């Protein structure tokens, strides 16, 4: 089981309590599709992804980014048992969506960059450490049920 300090819990809860899901979710997924273009392979049905402008103005991508970000809420509410919390979602990503789990890290890196840009200097090294630890646990849990 993952050990969280009081400070780490407080940092994670604080970030999510003040999160602009519509903005951050959309931006994080867009950035991922632009910075790591091979991730577009999962979004063939989402419309025009021809270039960065198209991706940034694509409403399907924006909506999906928000959906993904809300998916993290479960982990925030169950920080002491993220692995079990995501078992079903892990199966979904493996069996139905067929997403290569390496992609989870790519999206999580883009989310970190977007959060850093939003929080500015309050994204201190300690905040970054807690945030990245949280995302690493989520990424690991999401990849757990693949076989």
């Amino acid at each position: 089981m993952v050990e969280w300090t009081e400070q780490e819990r407080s940092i994670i809860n604080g970030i999510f309590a003040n999160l602009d899901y519509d903005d951050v979710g959309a931006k994080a997924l867009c950035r991922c599709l632009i910075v790591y273009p091979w991730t577009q392979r999962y979004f063939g049905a989402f419309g025009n992804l021809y270039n960065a402008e198209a991706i940034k103005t694509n409403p399907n991508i924006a909506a999906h980014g928000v959906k993904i970000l809300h998916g993290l809420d479960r982990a925030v509410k169950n920080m002491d048992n993220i692995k079990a919390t995501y078992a079903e979602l892990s199966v979904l990503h493996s069996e139905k969506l067929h997403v290569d789990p390496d992609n989870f890290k790519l999206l999580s890196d883009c989310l970190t960059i977007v959060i850093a840009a939003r929080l500015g200097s309050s994204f201190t090294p300690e905040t970054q450490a807690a945030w990245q630890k949280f995302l690493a646990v989520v990424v690991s849990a999401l990849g757990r049920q693949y076989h």
Partner: protein
Amino acid sequence: MTSLTAKDKATVKAFWAQVSGRAEDIGKDALGRMLIVYPQTKTYFAHWKDLGPNSAPVKKHGMTVMGGVADAVTKIDDLTAGLLSLSELHAFTLRIDPQNFKILAHNILVVLAIMFPTEFTPEVHVCMDKFLAALARALAEKYR
């Protein structure tokens, strides 16, 4: 891994021109951050007493590293040749595991996002990520 297109190089040079004035701050913050967020990187600096982000050796070294990045921008058309002596230094003297180049690159990108939230667009991000990866490859040239 893909090489840098003419457009990538132009984007990197243009963005660097905008941010180079704060190169020292970028370097100090990125290195300081790396030592905290990725504690295993501290193993390379056991000879410094203080590894906090405000310590003098950390700040100085952050500036040195960023100076290397600035130099690499000027040699972007042939990083392998341009960074030859730095590669030899890292291969034979420093012997830093190349995985750490990725870690530092990530922290540089985080600092760029913090300091330049508007300018560090996804388009700039992808070019900088490619550039830092190419830089890392050039640094690892002489390893084996």
